[in-house]
C-alpha cells in the first residue's frame, strides 16, 4: 500500500529572496507533502499560527528567518524566535514533541541550504511518527 507523504509546512521570510521564476513550485513538486508559505517578515508568525498549523494535521512546522542582525524590520527575527520558543513550550505542556516546530536561519537566496534544512527537518519529524492516533468524536 502506498503511504501518504507527511505534511510539512515551511513559513519563510520573503526578504530572504529564496524563490524566483517559479522555483518555489518546482521545490514543492520535488518534495511531496511540503507546503511553502511566504510571509512578509518572520516576525509576522505567532504561536497560534504554529499550533493551528499542527492542529490542521501538519506533522512539522519550520520557521525560516533572516539572521537576527540582518532583519529588515529590526526586531522581526528576534520576535519570531521568541514565538517559536513559546509555541514549543505549549507543545511541551501538551505532551507533544517540541521538535515538531523549529526555527532556523538560512543565508539570503541560498535555496540549496534551505532544501538541506528541509530534508533534515523532515527526517527528524518522520522519526517522531504520527502525532495523532485514529480520531473519534
Amino acid at each position, binding site marked *: 500500500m502506498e503511504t501518504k507523504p507527511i505534511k510539512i509546512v515551511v513559513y519563510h521570510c520573503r526578504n530572504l529572496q529564496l524563490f524566483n521564476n517559479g522555483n518555489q513550485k518546482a521545490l514543492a513538486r520535488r518534495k511531496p507533502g511540503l507546503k511553502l508559505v511566504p510571509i512578509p517578515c518572520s516576525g509576522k508568525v*505567532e*504561536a*497560534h499560527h504554529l*499550533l*493551528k498549523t*499542527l*492542529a490542521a494535521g501538519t506533522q512539522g512546522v519550520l520557521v525560516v528567518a533572516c539572521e537576527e542582525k540582518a532583519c529588515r524590520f529590526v526586531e522581526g527575527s528576534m520576535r519570531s524566535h521568541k514565538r517559536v520558543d513559546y509555541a514549543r513550550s*505549549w*507543545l511541551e*505542556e*501538551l*505532551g*507533544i514533541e517540541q521538535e515538531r516546530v523549529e526555527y532556523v536561519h538560512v543565508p539570503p537566496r541560498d535555496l540549496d541550504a534551505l532544501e538541506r534544512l528541509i530534508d533534515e527537518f523532515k527526517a527528524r519529524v518522520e522519526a517522531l511518527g504520527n*502525532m*495523532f*492516533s*485514529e*480520531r*473519534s*468524536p
Partner: protein
Amino acid sequence: MIVAERKPIEEIKRMLEGYPSVLVVGCDSCVAECAAGGHRETQLLAAALQLAFGKEGKSPVITEACIDRQCVDDFIESIASLVPEHAAILSLGCGAGVQALARVYSDKPVFPALDTLFIGETEMRGIWQENCLGCGQCKLGYFGAVCPVTRCSKRLMNGPCGGSKDGRCEVNPDIRCGWQMIIDRLEALGELARLSEYIPPVDWSTSHSGGPRRVVREDQLP
C-alpha cells in the same frame, strides 16, 4: 485593567471532558492587554485543545470567537448565533466575564480558562503590576497617587514599617517598598507635607465584608 493568567491545559481539558462541542470565547479588553484572553490567545487555546484532544484520539468540535467586552450584555449577544450549536462554553474572560456569559446563556455550562488575579497596569511589555485592590475608598490623593493598600505588603496607612530596607520590602525583597515610593514621589512633587496628616486605618466595610458590591445610578438606568 483586570489581569489574569491561563489555567494549566490539563485543568481546562478536565473541565471540558465529555462535551462533543465547545465554543471558546475570548475577551478583547483587559485580558487581551495582559496577553491572557484576547483574540490571539483564543486562537492559541482553541488550537491547543484540538491538539490535546487529538492526541487522545478525540475530536470534539472546537469553535473560537472573541468579543470586545465579555462583561457587557450588548457585546455578549454578538455570539448568540454560535451558542446553540455548542454543548459548552469556555471563557477566556475574567471572573466577571465568565459569570456574565453564564447569566446570559443560562442553559449552557460555562467554564473559565483563566485565573483572574488582580487590578493592575502594564508596567512594560510582559510585566503586569497589581496596583489597586478595589477597597472602595480611594485615598490616592493623600499618597502621591501610590496606593498604600496595594503597594505596601502590610497595607499601612501611616508607614513605612521598620522593615523597609534600601527601598525594598521586608516581606519580599524583590518588590519595592510602597511607602518608599510614596515618599519619593511626594518629595519630588514638593508635597511631602501631605504626610503630616493622620489617615485613619482602612474601613474594610466598603470592601468585601458585605458580600458582592453593587453600584446603582438612577441617571443611567433605562
